[in-house]
């Protein structure tokens, strides 16, 4: 929605997911404004995200496995940088 004002965290999320999962479709949506002043708002404006990702790598993988693949691709970002992330992972054709 505001891709032209994408911050460094969103850009890094996109880069890591693209490198690891070669997505056919990828949207990294910054929800942080909705959580301003709540727990986990670190003032960066990049603490809460929704990721919608479609990748052939998810075919034959169950929901838990798909999220593990996303979490693995993001690595230390999930622990250190991102407070909250909603993940929607699909294989093509689903």
């Amino acid at each position, binding site marked *: 929605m505001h891709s032209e004002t994408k911050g460094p965290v969103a850009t890094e999320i996109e880069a890591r997911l693209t490198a690891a999962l070669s997505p056919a479709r990828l949207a990294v949506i910054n929800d942080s404004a909705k959580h301003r002043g709540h*727990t986990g708002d670190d003032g960066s404006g990049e603490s809460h995200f929704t990721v919608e990702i479609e990748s052939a790598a998810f075919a034959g993988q169950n929901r*838990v496995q798909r999220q*593990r693949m996303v979490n693995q691709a993001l690595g230390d970002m*999930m622990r250190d940088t991102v407070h909250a*992330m909603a993940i*929607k992972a699909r294989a093509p054709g689903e």
Partner: protein
Amino acid sequence: MSDDAQARIDELVKANHVLLFMKGTPLFPQCGFSSRAISILDHLGADYETVDVLQDQGIRQGIKEYSDWPTIPQLYVNGEFVGGSDIMMEMYEAGELHTLFAGKGAAQAG
């Protein structure tokens, strides 16, 4: 990792048919994702227990290692890890969560 925390988590997971590790309590969830998980469980009329990880640092860290899952909430049914709030929502929308509770709940009745 504390072995004590792992043992306590294992005990909790095995002792409760439907167990949600969450931040806060069902009445006062301290995080949007935990709040959403509770809404889903309540909507399905599930008979569940919760553990507030904010009250116990050992469990808060340990639960992430127990299931190799980096986030909270986490749902366990019949001792098995089901997923976090995104997976709960997807399973709810697909009618799968209802089946999971109904099927296994019936088997446990009595």
